[in-house]
C-alpha cells in the first residue's frame, strides 16, 4: 500500500512538469494581478493555450496516437491534471469535448468524422458542446423529444430544444441526441448527430442561475438542416452511443471532485480564521463530520486510480463520491455562513458563488435520486422499480402521458 508513483509514472510526471516549467509563462492569467478581463480575450487566450498543451502532449493524454493523443492510460491523465494544477496554469478550455465527446467519436464515429473533427477539437480550434438534456428529459434521458426527420435525399431536418448546455455560446459543434423514430420504444428510436452551432435555425440563449451568472445555455433548433453524414454511430443507435459519453462523464466526475475546491483543507481554513468558531464545540463537531467525509472522497479517488491502474473500469459507485462531495460542500457553506454571518453572502465573497452554485450541482450529471437508484440496482443488486414505459412505442407513451395530465 503506497501513494507513490511507479518509476514509469514518476518519469512521465517529470516530463510533464518540465514541459510546464518551460511553457507556463505562455499560459493566460485568469486570476490575480494582470488577469485578463475581456471575455473575448480570455476565450482566445484559452483556445491558444489548449493548442499549446495539445502540442506538448498535455491534452488528449488517453486519446490514441493516430488522432493526436498520447495513447496513455487514465493514470497518466490524472498525473497530467495534477501537474497542471500544481503549475497553477489553466487547464484545457474544452474539457467536455476532449474528455467526453471526442472519445465518443473515437469509439463510434466514421473515419471521415474522426479526421475532420478530432484534430481541431484537441487543439481548441473548434470547441464542442454536449446536446443531450432537454426540459423534459434529464434523469429519463431516453425521453428526448428533439426530432430529426430524414429527407428523401438522405439529409435531416432537426427541431426541438436542449438545455444545460455548457460552452454552447462559443462552441463550433455539438453532439446531439435526437429522436428519429417515435414509433418504436424510446431507447430504440434515437440517433446521435454532429450539429454545426452556426447553422441556420440554431438559437443559443444564456441560462442565468441563482448566482445571476449564466454557466449554461438553452439551445433551440428550428428546422435545422443536417447532412446525411452528420449521424454518429448509425441511425437508431443513439442510446448506445450516448452511454459511451456518459461513461466518460462518470470517470471525469469521479476523478475530478477535489479539483472543484470542495475540500476539507479549504473549509477548515475558513473556520480556523475565526478565533471563537475554532474553539466552539458545535462548530468543530460539524466541521469534523464534513471534513471526514470529504477526506474519504480523496482516498476513494486513490482507490479508483488503483483500480484503473489494474485495468479495471470504475463502476457506478463513483457516483456516491459525487453525492458526498456535493452534500459535504453544501453543509460546509452553511456552516461557514453561520460563522461569518450575512457578509458570507456578499456577491464578491469567497463563498457566495459556491453557496449559489451547489443546489443546481446536486442535479448535474445525474440527480442524487437517480444516482442512488443506479447504485442500488447495479452495485447492491436491488430490483428496479416497475416501469410503465417498457416496450411501448414512444409516440403512444407521449399520448398516454398527455391523457394522464
Amino acid at each position: 500500500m503506497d501513494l507513490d508513483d511507479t518509476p514509469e509514472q514518476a518519469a512521465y510526471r517529470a516530463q510533464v512538469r518540465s514541459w510546464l516549467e518551460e511553457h507556463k509563462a505562455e499560459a493566460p492569467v485568469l486570476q490575480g494581478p494582470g488577469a485578463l478581463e475581456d471575455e473575448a480575450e480570455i476565450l482566445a487566450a484559452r483556445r491558444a493555450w489548449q493548442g499549446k498543451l495539445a502540442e506538448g502532449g498535455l491534452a488528449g493524454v488517453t486519446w490514441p496516437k493516430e488522432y493526436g493523443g498520447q495513447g496513455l492510460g487514465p493514470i497518466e491523465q490524472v498525473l497530467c491534471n495534477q501537474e497542471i494544477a500544481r503549475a497553477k496554469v489553466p487547464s484545457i478550455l474544452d474539457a467536455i469535448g476532449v474528455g467526453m465527446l471526442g472519445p465518443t467519436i473515437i469509439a463510434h464515429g466514421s473515419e471521415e468524422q474522426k479526421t475532420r473533427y478530432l484534430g481541431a477539437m484537441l487543439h481548441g480550434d473548434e470547441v464542442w458542446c454536449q446536446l443531450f438534456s432537454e426540459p423534459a428529459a434529464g434523469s429519463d434521458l431516453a425521453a428526448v423529444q428533439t426530432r430529426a426527420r430524414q429527407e428523401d435525399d438522405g439529409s435531416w431536418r432537426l427541431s426541438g430544444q436542449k438545455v444545460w448546455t455548457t460552452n454552447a455560446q462559443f462552441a463550433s459543434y455539438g453532439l446531439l441526441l435526437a429522436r428519429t423514430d417515435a414509433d418504436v420504444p424510446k431507447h430504440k428510436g434515437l440517433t446521435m448527430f454532429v450539429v454545426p452551432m452556426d447553422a441556420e435555425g440554431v438559437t443559443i440563449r444564456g441560462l442565468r442561475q441563482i448566482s445571476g451568472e449564466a454557466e449554461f445555455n438553452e439551445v433551440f433548433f428550428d428546422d435545422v438542416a443536417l447532412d446525411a453524414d452528420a449521424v454518429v454511430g448509425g441511425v437508431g443507435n443513439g442510446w448506445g452511443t450516448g452511454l459511451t459519453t456518459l461513461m466518460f462523464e462518470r470517470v471525469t466526475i469521479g476523478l475530478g471532485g477535489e479539483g472543484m475546491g470542495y475540500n476539507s483543507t479549504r473549509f477548515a481554513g475558513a473556520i480556523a480564521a475565526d478565533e471563537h468558531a475554532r474553539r466552539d464545540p458545535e462548530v468543530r463537531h460539524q466541521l469534523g463530520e464534513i471534513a471526514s467525509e470529504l477526506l474519504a472522497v480523496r482516498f476513494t479517488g486513490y482507490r479508483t486510480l488503483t483500480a484503473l491502474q489494474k485495468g479495471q473500469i470504475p463502476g457506478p459507485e463513483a457516483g456516491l463520491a459525487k453525492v458526498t462531495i456535493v452534500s459535504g460542500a453544501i453543509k460546509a457553506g452553511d456552516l461557514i455562513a453561520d460563522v461569518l454571518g450575512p457578509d458570507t453572502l456578499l456577491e464578491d465573497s469567497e463563498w457566495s458563488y459556491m453557496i449559489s452554485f451547489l443546489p443546481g450541482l446536486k442535479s448535474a450529471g445525474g440527480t442524487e435520486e437517480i444516482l442512488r437508484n443506479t447504485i442500488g440496482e447495479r452495485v447492491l443488486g436491488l430490483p428496479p422499480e416497475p416501469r410503465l414505459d417498457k416496450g411501448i412505442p414512444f409516440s403512444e407513451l407521449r399520448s398516454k402521458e398527455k391523457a394522464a395530465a
Partner: protein
Amino acid sequence: MNLALSDEQVFLREAARGALSRFKTLEGAREALDGNSGALPDLWPTAKEAGWTGMLISEEHGGAGLDAFDAMLVLGECGRVLAGIGLLGHLPATAILNDASGGAPMLAELASGERRAAYLPVSPPDDLSDSWNVDPASGLARPLAPIATASGEGQATVSGELAFVPDAPEADLLVGVALLDGKPVGVAIESGAAGVAVEALTRYDSTRSLGHVSLKEAPATVLDTPVEALAGAWYLAQALIAAESLGSVETALDVSVAYAKERFTFGRAIGSYQAVKHSLTEVLRQLENGRSLLYYAGWARSGGPHEFPLAASAARSVAGRALDTAARTMISVHGGIGATWEHDAPLYFRRAQLSRRLLGGTAKATDRVAGELIVQADAA
C-alpha cells in the same frame, strides 16, 4: 499509487473469516444477554493459533511484524460476526511495548498469546488542551491520565482511575500512559499486582468485555516508548475500532439487502421502492467512505505518521456514524421483526450504541478531526 489489498492481505482476511465462521458468535451474544455468559465462545485460542496476538510485535520479539492495516483487516472480520476476541485491548498495548526498549522481555509471551494485555486508553493533547486525559465513568469532564511516581530505576508506582477499558478483565498486563513529573511515559502494570483493581462490566452489548481499572500506587515498569508512539496507541485504537465497526456495517448491509430482495409488498420486492433502495445506498455510501479512510489510516501509520491522528480520527468518526446508520436501517428494512429479540438486527444495534461511546467516543474523534485540520490551516 496502490491502495488495494495485497495477495497476503486478501489471504489474511479470508483466513480470518474462515476461522471465525466456526463459532456461533451471534447466538452466543443473544444467550449471553439472557444471562448465560458461558454461551460466548472463547476466541482467544483462535487468535493465538492464527498468530493475531503477535501481529503488531516485531519478528525479533516473537511477533509477525505486520502493519496496522493487517490488524484492521482482522478486526473487520471480527466486527462482521460480532466476535469478542480481546484484540482491541491487546494490540495497542503490544504496540506501546514494541516501541520501548524495556518492553522487549514482556513481548514474547504476549506475541504467542500465552499472556494477554490490555491498553489503558489515554487521549493525547489536542489544539485546545495540553492535557493527557482519560474517559470518565460518566459525563463530559475528562480526568487527567494516571500519575506515576518514580520508585527506582525504571520503576514507578501509578495511581489513577480508567473507565470502560476494553478487554481489561481478561488481561494479565495493563499497558498505557501515565504522567511522571507531568510528562507522559509508557507504563506496564501487572494486573495481579497490589493496588490494581479491575471491575469487570458489560453494558448493553454482551460481546464487549470492559473493565473499570483502579490503580492505587500500583507498581509499574516505566517504558521508554517515544511520546509519538504513546499518542499513536490512542490513534491505533481508534483505527481498530473503526475497522471493527465497518465490518459490522458490512454484515448489516448484506443482510438488509438480501431481505429487501425477498420480502414482497404490494406485489413487488421492497428493495424496488426508492425509499428503501435509497436508505440502503446511504449505508453503502457511508461504508465506502469509511473504507477509504481505513486505507488512509492504514497507509498513514507508517507512510505518513504526522497524518495518522487525522486519518484514524476521521475513520473512527465516519465508521461510528456508519454503524449507527447501518444498524437502524437494518431494523427499519426488516420492519417489525427487525426489532424483535430473536432477530440479529438488535445485536448489531446494541454493538453500535456501545461502540460509539467507547475509547473517547465518536464525538471526540470528530472533534479531533476538526482540531487537526485547524492546526494544519494555521501552519499553511
